[in-house]
């Protein structure tokens, strides 16, 4: 008993140093050397300042940007220091009401058009960087009108930022909203400079 108790303490200390300090520090060193960008969150830098992470979504509103999904992260959504979902169950009135108001907002001047489901449902992380190709397609007319860019050109932009299934079979096809919107701003500045 006494011997095992002493070993318990010693074993805890020695392995805590090994598994809790040496192992993560070794991994940090290796990751920083071999995968510097990925290990630090794939930050996008524009004009010298960080404007976001390639794999973390942001809030977009109004008609001139593609919208991401509703977010339950933090008080105002897309809070990347407070990730999480709504945890609304399928029979929750608050859930049904929230979807209804999102639908009304997104249908805008096109009432009655069914809205792709991912565009009115909150993701698990609240930080989903992606929408489905269907959700991007749905928003093309609105953004095209607001931006003065042809729907055809927008379609090409969306296609450019659509990732197919990884390795051809894994996951689902998806459109990265932040990258698409950054490119939108670029496209607009091209239009202006013409």
């Amino acid at each position, binding site marked *: 008993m006494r011997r095992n108790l002493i*070993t318990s303490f010693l074993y805890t200390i020695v*392995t805590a140093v090994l598994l809790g300090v040496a192992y993560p520090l070794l991994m940090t060193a290796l990751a920083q050397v071999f995968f510097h960008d990925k*290990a*630090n969150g794939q930050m996008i830098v524009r004009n010298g300042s960080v404007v976001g992470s390639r794999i973390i979504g*942001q809030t977009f509103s109004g008609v001139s940007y593609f919208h991401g999904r509703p977010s339950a992260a933090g008080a105002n959504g897309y809070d990347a220091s407070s990730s999480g979902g709504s945890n609304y169950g399928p*029979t*929750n009135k608050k859930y049904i009401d929230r979807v209804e108001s999102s*639908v009304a907002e997104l249908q805008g001047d096109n009432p009655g058009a069914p809205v792709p*489901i991912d565009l009115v449902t909150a993701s698990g992380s609240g930080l989903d960087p992606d929408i489905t190709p269907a959700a991007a397609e749905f928003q093309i007319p609105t953004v095209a009108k607001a931006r003065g860019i042809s729907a055809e050109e927008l379609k090409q932009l969306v296609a450019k930022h659509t990732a197919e299934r990884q390795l051809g079979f894994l996951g689902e096809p998806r459109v990265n909203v932040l990258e698409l919107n950054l490119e939108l701003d670029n496209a607009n500045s091209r239009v202006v400079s013409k």
Partner: protein
Amino acid sequence: MTWSGWLQILIFFGVLLVMVKPLGVYMARVFEGERTFADPLFRPIERLLYRLTGVDESREMRWSEYGIAMLLFSGVTMLLTYGIQRLQTILPWNPQKLGAVAPDLAFNTASSFTTNTNWQAYTPESTMSYFTQMVGLATHNFWSAAVGMALAVVFIRGIARRESKTVGNFWVDMTRATMRILLPICVVYGLVLVSQGVVQNLRPYDTAKLIQPQTAATTDSNGKQVTQVIDTQAIAQGPVASQEAIKMLGTNGGGFFNANSAHPFENPTPLSNLLEMLSIFLIPAGLTVTLGRMTKSPRHGWAVFAAMAVLFFAGVIVAYSAESQPNPLLHGVDQQTTVAQAGGNMEGKEVRFGIANSALFATVTTDASCGAVNSMHDSFMPLGGLVPLVNILLGEVVFGGVGAGMYGILIMVVLTVFIAGLMVGRTPEYQGKKIEAYDVKMAMLYVLIFPLSILILAALASISPVFGLTALTNNGPHGLSEILYAYASATGNNGSAFAGLSANTHFYNFTLGAAMLIGRFFMIVPMLAVAGNLAGKKVVPPSSGTFPVTTPLFTVLLVSVILIVGALTFFPALTLGPVLEHLLLHAGKAF
């Protein structure tokens, strides 16, 4: 449902199947102390570890001493984690200057990580410093997993050994599990995760300037409406990959971030998702081969594997079908499956994973006692959420937790053999060992502690409006499901949640903390007693009346016993929760 979805599920299982045998054989060699190819690398480290900690590696323990060493070690490590949380303000690697964790929450978390549950009543990114995550929590991911593996090996030795008083040395088994299995896999696997985009750094949180600043209306302290401009996004960072690797491999499941494996920094791509799911099942599935090899009956190992596979597929088929259904209460939305969208129930799910990978992950994480999530189980359709709940209530024996799944199903095997013996009126034997009254009593103790803890505590929470019900996000039958899931998850040492339950209250922190300790240690002790008792028995040669444990008939009986024990115990509670919600949903009722 899509062909692509089914294909991904089959590929997942196919890859698992390929990996099971080599790993299982390797683990058997490691725990039997045979030479392996990696000896030159690991022997010196192990020798040093034994010298520093005063372990005599040739000394064997009886089951009781083994159990005491395990309890002492668990107690000491639990204290360490409690202490680190309380003192994190004066410890290093706290760039966000996070304050000390409250005592009740620190107790809950220490219980949670010590018991391999990883229930999280806290929001990690705003509660735990990098030091606490690394030294206080990730260490437990190794320790609790290694303890589980050691205990499973003890049970296997109990079956394999003859007239033996001892079952092995706790410290040696722990060390071998950690140094030769968990740690080497984690180093490689962690780096692969980083290559997919899982972050690994010690930097303070980043602040990004938003592309499109937003205004939000809030109410200030005087109750006045004010508009607030939000033009930045704080992005939490941390040493995630090193923890993510062992979190999955050790079936721990405690996320570095609140959103767990739904968070893009924990699980950025469909490939990382596939690897995370595989690493949950890898060791538990491999242990079936270890069982076959160490008991010199490989076909018995595969018969157990087959039973697990049947229950796994049953779960994933129901979950995937349920989640693909449209929610009849929603209007003006397109929930159909097309080439451009997965459709179905997307609340709480990520686009990159879609329906198939979310349903599969939910099934895998609760078949095993992992509890990591890549989608929010609370937002599943009633029957979709029923699957993870039932998986936990069946005792997480479908592959199960590392080690815990193996000794869990071996208890079920003992009961199966016993029931088969009763049916033909002979003394039941298992691998030549007579199963006697003492073994069955201990096995039943193991089986009964589980529902007692879940049902009594869940009932207590359900009838206390102040303590229990104020924490709910969802009303109606779904509210009962939230409570039932919480106590099932805690007692089953799973750790996933119907996370709408705001469980960071004194009441929930203490009762769930207690449930986790009961579900781990009160069940381990009778299990060890069975193992120790089996080890001491003589082997009788098989006769024509012996029930063979290598046949499909055995697999069918084993599955039936698991289902009947689970169903008889929990059917009434499940009827009032998910089943009732399903019926009401289709009657158009919301709460």
